[in-house]
């Protein structure tokens, strides 16, 4: 089994704040790998680094065997055609309707006839159950529908790698179930490699093949979902079980409460 993405010794900081401090992650081909962690640990940043929208401070990221940050613009764009990304907000083009949103990449990158494009787009929309919504504008869609359209768009070019940024957050139980099933189906049926970035512990553990847990810029644990569930370390338990206080403090750093209330400086 080969690794599609290899991240080694990744360092990254933004506005003097360290986000990654020596992170190593490998994404095996054909599997669903989840990266979990509390909000603000830079999970989205990680995806942007893999997509080379950001440059790392140190370390390297290999995608399909190529150091993605050393590629020329042309080669980078060529490689990106093999990647799909589902953004947290969906990122649908608001001036195009659902059909054109899904057709966008096909029109840009292929010379297919209009009939072919139409068939492909309708198949993708059928897959997410929104063929009937093809003429709606993004503003007429609900949040869950918008994310499903975005998913159809992300897989329009049948990418090898698909990255999901918080696919499940803010979804009602039904659309969450739909999305979980879709992610699994896409991965298995189309042979894609998936990276899920999320903080929804239960659902993510239920679909992932392998899980990394991050906190404070480092990997604090990894393994199969079962291994994660049985991990005994305090940091891991707090995150997985959702305990309010623990190694990750509930309070933002501050001076003692009584002093603050009394106004002592």
């Amino acid at each position, binding site marked *: 089994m080969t690794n599609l993405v290899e991240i080694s010794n990744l360092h990254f900081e933004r506005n003097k704040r360290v986000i990654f401090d020596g992170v190593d992650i490998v994404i095996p081909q054909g599997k669903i790998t989840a990266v979990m962690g509390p909000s603000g640990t830079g999970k989205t940043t990680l995806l942007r680094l893999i997509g080379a929208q950001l440059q790392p401070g140190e370390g390297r990221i290999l995608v399909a065997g190529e150091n993605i940050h050393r590629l020329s613009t042309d080669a980078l764009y060529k490689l990106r055609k093999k990647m799909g990304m589902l953004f947290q907000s969906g990122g649908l083009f608001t*001036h*195009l*309707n659902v059909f054109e949103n899904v057709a966008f990449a096909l029109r840009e990158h292929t010379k297919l006839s209009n009939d072919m494009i139409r068939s492909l787009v309708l198949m993708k929309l059928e897959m997410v159950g929104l063929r009937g919504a093809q003429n709606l*504008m993004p503003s007429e869609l609900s949040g869950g529908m918008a994310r499903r359209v975005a998913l159809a768009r992300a897989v329009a070019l049948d990418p090898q790698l698909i990255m999901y940024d918080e696919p499940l957050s803010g979804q009602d139980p039904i659309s969450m179930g739909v999305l979980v099933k879709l992610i699994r189906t896409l991965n298995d049926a189309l042979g894609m490699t998936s990276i899920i970035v999320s903080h929804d512990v239960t659902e993510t553990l239920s679909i992932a093949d392998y899980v990394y847990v991050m906190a404070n810029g480092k990997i604090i644990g990894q393994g199969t979902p079962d291994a994660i569930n049985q991990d005994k370390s305090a940091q891991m338990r707090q995150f997985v079980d959702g305990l309010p206080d623990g190694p990750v403090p509930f309070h933002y750093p501050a001076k003692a409460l009584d002093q603050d209330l009394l106004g002592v400086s």
Partner: protein
Amino acid sequence: MLSQRTIESFVGLFLLAAMMALMVLAFKVSGLTSFFKPKSYTVIAMFDEIGQLKVRSPVKMGGVLIGEVSSITLDPQSFKAIVKMDIDHRFNEIPDDSSANILTAGLLGDNYIALTPMYSQTFLKSGSTIEDTHSAMILEKMIGQLIYKLGGGSSSKASTTTSNTSNASDSNKIDDSNHNVDTQKRIQK
């Protein structure tokens, strides 16, 4: 959302409107004729003084526009202004002894050249020179003469006859300076 066809039609209309507007600016507003220059022939006239005459000033005959000034240069020997004018080829039977006058349209208007036809049986043709020319009236000079004349009228009591006025510019040149002093004194009072 509008279809691409509709958008392109609107843009086409927009371009068309702009082109028509440019035509208006070119021909109606700036009177551009050089694109489709009508056939014309060039006539030369020399003037002592051309006043405010410019390139593209009109050339008229009996008040009708027949051409325009095409170039103005100074003759380095005689220090006269050489004015070339393009005259519409339709007016090709202008007697060659006609005279050219530089006149002013209204009190503050632009200068133009007025051709006055005479009786010769030969006509102006390309490259001909108009011999009989009358210079532009310069407002400052006319006012100067007027003030001078008024001054002369009051200081020498018996000089209110018409003959005096008619040859004022010739006879009074001799003691021009005296009178100027006179006038100034009066103004100071």
